């Protein structure tokens, strides 16, 4: 629940910060640009709700683990280039909850300024010397640029977030960067959708989430200062339109987190004690209602 609260907090905070400033920017631009903003064809909303069965196992997040019914909600609203997005769907690694401003649009490209919820907060509890010890890490929010390219049924997405709301122990120019490639194949009335992605996290970002300073080390937990790492994800889904509002979908997602993340004592011990897998895996079968 903390993660979703953080996401909502991030979006509300970002909307409060970005929307007035972006609106001011729009007001100050020349009339030609204003016309371009006015006719931004991404303006509008989209919303879909999916209900189905999902099986999720994760080495990092205990909250993610589940086997049963799950509700997914995808929502997006854009007004004069200003947008807010919330997606907790199976492709959520690609689609960080975000607010932002679409400042450039061509036939094939969209460039956005975004503030995004990047990583959730985590909590690690264990016992030592008869006492319960709790190690907790906050969620992170980053600010930067997103580029989305589209050619037919192929897409490319690049995200670079150099600025973080939190004080990361980092000297990297960019603390979070991702590259996603996707393609859709039509097989009669079915759609086969494939997506692969790589997510770079700086040493500072991983350290903020999973590092252990010497002051927290004890007989159980050892000190850990990670370097940067890259997480890889492959996602595939098969969709069938039952009606113009209802979409049947079966999907599978696999994520391999970097060694720098998995080697953290917070993760290594949790995996050992709770029998968590090395890879994050998700499988689901859903019915989507698309508004």
């Amino acid at each position, binding site marked *: 629940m903390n993660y979703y609260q953080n996401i909502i907090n991030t979006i509300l905070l970002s909307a409060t910060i970005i929307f007035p400033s972006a609106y001011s920017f729009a007001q100050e631009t020349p009339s030609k640009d204003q016309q371009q903003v006015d006719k931004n064809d991404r303006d509008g909303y989209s919303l879909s709700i999916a209900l189905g069965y999902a099986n999720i196992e994760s080495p990092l997040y205990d909250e993610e683990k589940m086997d049963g*019914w799950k509700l997914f909600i995808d929502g*997006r609203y854009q007004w004069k280039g200003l947008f807010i997005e919330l997606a907790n769907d199976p492709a959520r690694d690609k689609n960080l909850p975000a607010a932002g401003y679409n400042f450039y649009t061509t*036939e094939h490209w969209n460039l956005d300024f975004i503030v995004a919820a990047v990583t959730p907060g985590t909590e690690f509890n264990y016992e030592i010397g008869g006492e319960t010890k709790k190690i907790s890490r906050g969620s992170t929010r980053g600010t930067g640029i997103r580029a989305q390219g589209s050619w037919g049924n192929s897409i490319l997405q690049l995200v670079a977030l150099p600025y973080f709301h939190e004080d990361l122990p980092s000297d990297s120019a960019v603390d979070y960067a991702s590259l996603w490639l996707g393609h859709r194949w039509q097989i009669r009335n079915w759609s086969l959708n494939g997506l692969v992605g790589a997510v770079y996290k700086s040493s500072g970002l991983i350290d903020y989430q999973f590092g252990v300073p010497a002051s927290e080390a004890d007989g159980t937990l050892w000190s850990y200062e990670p370097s940067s790492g890259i997480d890889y994800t492959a996602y595939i889904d098969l969709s069938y339109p039952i*009606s*113009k509002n209802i979409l049947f979908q079966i999907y599978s997602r696999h994520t391999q987190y970097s060694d720098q993340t998995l080697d953290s004592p917070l993760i290594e011990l949790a995996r050992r004690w709770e029998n968590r897998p090395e890879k994050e895996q998700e499988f689901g079968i859903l019915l989507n209602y698309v508004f």
Partner: protein
Amino acid sequence: MKNKYQFIFVMLFIFTFQSGFADEPKNGDPVRLSLKPKECVVFKEGDKCYAKVSANWSTKELGSFCLFRTPDTKLECWNGSNEGRYTEDLVMSEAVDYYLVRVDSSEVVVRKTVELSWVYKKTTRLEHTWRLF
């Protein structure tokens, strides 16, 4: 595990009954034409839609009739008949009309449409390029 089987059962049930059934014609209509399905749905606007279309027609009186599909494609003719059935595999890129023509007068006596629909509109909304943005 029980949940999984319940869900699969619900899915199968929906799939079994999802295909559209043409409205039954009103009693007393002189000529009736029913199509199944009435609508073909694709993932995204611009996709081709694949359908097995079944057309059933009937009249009160015997006559000679031909069934056509747009654009001006003659599918089958019947002589001295008051009912007929025609089935074909269709690849649609737009809505398709089926119509019955009386041979002696070339009059179109009944016309019905298989509509084409999509879940996602063709826009620059990149996230819709594949499902789930």
